[in-house]
């Protein structure tokens, strides 16, 4: 039977190393299947997160041959010349093996003001063409691969300055909801730090839900923020409003 070799990172906060595993190949097998085989037959304590194995939940994020992606969507036959290295996401503190501490993402989510409709009654009348913009952002499965690959968060430890692409997508979903009445531009300019994004589109390239994170979420949010704060006319008006 054909087999593949996986180099899987084993270790915890105190350090670690890659370990090679030989796994028999089954047609259509994905990296997550191989990880499960390793758990059942070699090392039962190999840690990874997963839930649905169907790219709906966004739990099994890892770096496969250096590229951040979902293990349930990475087919082994993509790598005919092996070996396949599987490492944890780099931008988050390591807990063990392929599991990282992603709690920061939930903490920033809590700081984003929720959907606030004008009219509490409903049912709402909204048209398909008006909901589609926000629907794109609602596709997010919170795999945090975009957060992982964002230069601000990954290379510059900027978690105290920028909420990251996932959060921009969440803010955009609220801001572009036809019934939302709240402005989040002060947050964008301040704690959420949208200005830190320099539009390299790395996040957009590897989004498993194909959300146009930069083009459709971040750039329009930057524009909203700029309109509000850097439009000279508005700046003057604000000056008077304060008096």
């Amino acid at each position: 039977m054909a087999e593949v070799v996986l180099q899987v990172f084993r270790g915890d906060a105190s350090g670690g190393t890659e370990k090679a595993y030989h796994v028999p190949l089954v047609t259509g097998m994905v990296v997550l299947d191989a990880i499960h085989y390793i758990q059942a037959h070699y090392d039962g304590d190999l840690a990874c997160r997963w839930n649905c194995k169907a790219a709906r939940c966004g739990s099994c994020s890892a770096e496969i041959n250096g590229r951040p992606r979902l293990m349930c969507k990475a087919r082994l036959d993509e790598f005919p010349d092996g070996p396949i290295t599987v490492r944890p996401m780099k931008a988050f503190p390591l807990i063990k093996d392929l599991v990282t501490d992603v709690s920061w993402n939930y903490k920033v989510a809590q700081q984003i003001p929720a959907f606030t409709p004008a009219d509490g009654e409903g049912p709402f009348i909204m048209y398909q063409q008006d909901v589609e913009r926000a629907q794109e952002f609602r596709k997010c499965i919170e795999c945090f691969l975009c957060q992982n690959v964002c230069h601000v968060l990954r290379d510059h430890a900027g978690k105290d300055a920028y909420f990251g692409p996932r959060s921009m997508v969440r803010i955009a979903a609220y801001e572009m909801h036809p019934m939302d009445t709240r402005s989040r531009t002060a947050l964008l300019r301040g704690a959420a730090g949208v200005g830190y994004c320099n539009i390299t589109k790395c996040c957009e390239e590897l989004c498993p839900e194909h959300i146009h994170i930069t083009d459709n979420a971040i750039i329009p949010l930057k524009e909203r923020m700029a309109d509000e704060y850097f439009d000279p006319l508005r700046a003057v008006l604000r000056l008077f409003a304060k008096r």
Partner: protein
Amino acid sequence: MLERFENYEYDVLIVGAGGAGLRAAIAASAAGARVALVTKSLLGKAHTVMAEGGIAAALGNVDPADNWQVHFCDTMRGGQMINDWRMVELFATEAPERVYELERWGALFDRTPEGKIMQRPFGAHTWRRLCHVGDRTGLELIRTLQERGVHQGLDVHMEVTLTRLLKDGERIAGAFGYRRENGRFIVFRAKAIVLATGGWGRVYKVTSNSWECTGDGVAMAYEAGAELMDMEMVQFHPTGMVWPPGVRGILVTEGVRGEGGILLNSEGERFMERYDPVKKDLSSRDVVARAIYREVEEGRGTPHGGAYLDITHRGPDFIKQKLPSMYDQFLSLADVDITREKMEVGPTIHYAMGGVRVAPETGATSLPGLYGAGEVTAGLHGANRLGGNSLSDLLVFGKRAGEAAAAYANGLATTPSLDEAEIEAESQRVVQPFESGGSENPYLLHEALQETMQEKAGIARTGELLEQGLQEILQLRERAGRMGVSGSRLFNPGWHMSIDVPFMLTVCEGIVRAAIARRESRGGHWRLDCPTQDPELGRLNYIVRKTPDGMEVTTAPIPPMREDLAALLTAK
């Protein structure tokens, strides 16, 4: 003595953060209770995200003739009349308001040209009834509830597994568990608990369910003395992926048929016309699953043992708009472009109709202080669940259970006290696989159990197969006493599996014992040796409970249906 553990105290503890748990938490919190939500995964990852096709509610947006009465009748007939009719009534009348509430909280459903919530046809629903967002409705539901919940001030304990419900005499006093991240023990003291732990599809080999669906909640409720009901009723969804082997079982949404997809056998025949000439491809799930099974058995299956599902006639633009996840799933995992090629599909385990027996209005179990909502409970769906009814189930009964649990907690004069000896004993039990030096591998025991359930308690059952299955389960139970795991308590999936396996064994024993007892075919329960429906048994639910002598199966008569509701079913 308990300082070795993390200790928390709440009014209401919600176990499970899928749709039912989140809705219950929001309701209990809104009622003024101190609420904690415990989930085995990260928040927002629960199996609810896998719900694709939609949420059933008789809004009548595209078919004005629809109303709660028709939804009631469809659900009762789909469940083959062993449903709890009062639950079905509450469900059908309250589902529309729960959907509109979700919209007020920010959910963005697909729209009709008039700007209302769009509704699509689905199996055995008389009218177009399923509100949806493409084929990712469950994600929309869970994200909306999650965002509502985190801003409402409830504590969320992520990646915590509970292993035992704790009692003070005969009433609930709390629960014991551990943090998956570091293995640290946690003791929750709580006046009331809402179980929203979902189903147990992982006990079968070919399944659409995520790893979490191991039946913890139903097993813990059983151990604590609560009654279970209809455990024999397990749903085989007719359309799971069958090829390649690595993806076998992954769900293909019923929305494909809802949007016009048709089933074909290897001879190109639209075979559902023979099995259900009226509803055809949109017949109820039990009927379609059995039809596919029969076609394969009789030699008209596809190369990989399924049926073809064809949606190509709707054209690429429509398919990519209405079924984007399906398009992506087949293209990336099976190299099949569903806009140009047929899919291969076959039955996969999808849902548990049975579960903890609850009171229809409150979700109260037979144990004071213990409530349930969603898939973990029994009653609403009877012998077969209609597609789309689970998401509205979560909202309607999540809210009711959350409110009832909060009211119960508010009414307690004294906070129940914990039994420290019980906690001590449980903390020793769960670490036993580290210390026993046992030779049994928990992963391989789980695989063996899945084989047994697939072969002996699968879609086509006989008394003989079920008896064999029971013996195998009892042998596996004995082997499970010798499980051993290595490594530390730091995020150790092998150890976690050693805790899941006994839960699953309890669930399987319940399924098989109840399946042996129900000597007829009804809904998801198909006995080749008792192939017809027995009207006498249609007046009974099978009850499973723990006794000093082991698991006991008895029957309970279904109360006679209220006259006004019965009249709905006889009217034409």
